């Protein structure tokens, strides 16, 4: 089953849309299918059901054992490759 990644930003309007697309394109190129869900950072703790990884631009609250990658790389272009490696390492386990 495809892994579930929650993509969050402060508002779930523009920023996470861009982050989500960038992750989707990157994974597609590598032939990896995932289920990406967009939400506000504040909503993250209430949306953890079945989530394998959280990628966020801004701090999220208590998410228990679920790994969190907080990064602006998809907006700035700095460190995208390193973040993609991290993302893949989490969803491949």
């Amino acid at each position, binding site marked *: 089953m495809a892994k579930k990644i929650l993509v969050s930003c402060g508002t779930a*309007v*523009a920023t996470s849309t861009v*982050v989500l*697309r*960038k992750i989707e394109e990157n994974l597609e190129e590598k032939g990896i299918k995932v289920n990406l869900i967009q939400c506000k950072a504040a909503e993250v703790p209430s949306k953890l059901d079945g989530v394998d990884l959280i990628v966020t631009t801004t701090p999220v609250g208590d998410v228990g054992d679920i790994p969190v990658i907080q990064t602006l790389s998809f*907006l700035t*272009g700095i460190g995208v490759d390193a973040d993609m490696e991290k993302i893949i390492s989490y969803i491949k386990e």
Partner: protein
Amino acid sequence: MKIEDILKAECILGNIEAPSKEAALKIMAEKLYSLGYVKESYIQAIQDREANYPSGLPMEDLKIAIPHTDADHVNQSVICFARLPEDVEFSVMGDPDQKIPVRLISMFALKEKKKIGDLLETLITTYQDNNVLKALLNAEDDTAIYNILYDNVGKNLKAS
């Protein structure tokens, strides 16, 4: 979307004096209103949106902001680009507690709501290239800015 449909020479403001981001956004939004691209409500809407959902991009070297607001306030889609002689402070997109100095502002007004993701991604991808930002900052005049945007945003714009 084609680059010539949204990039207009009359909306390139290569030298605007503004002491704050609010002042810069006001000049840009009023320009778009005076040219008929947006409704009067856009002028306030762009300020509100920036206050709530900031649009500064914290690139490693030069920074830029990409303010925008809802399609309801727009008559015709357009990009408005401004360059300031001095830094103004913007908050960072996706991380509002972080502040960055900005001299380049790439505002847009988009009438087609569902294309906002495409255009945002295009602009962000374009401005991730520090050489593009450097060229915009050092461009001689409005025409030079227009040409840089035409080539680089145009290249990344999806044909759809």
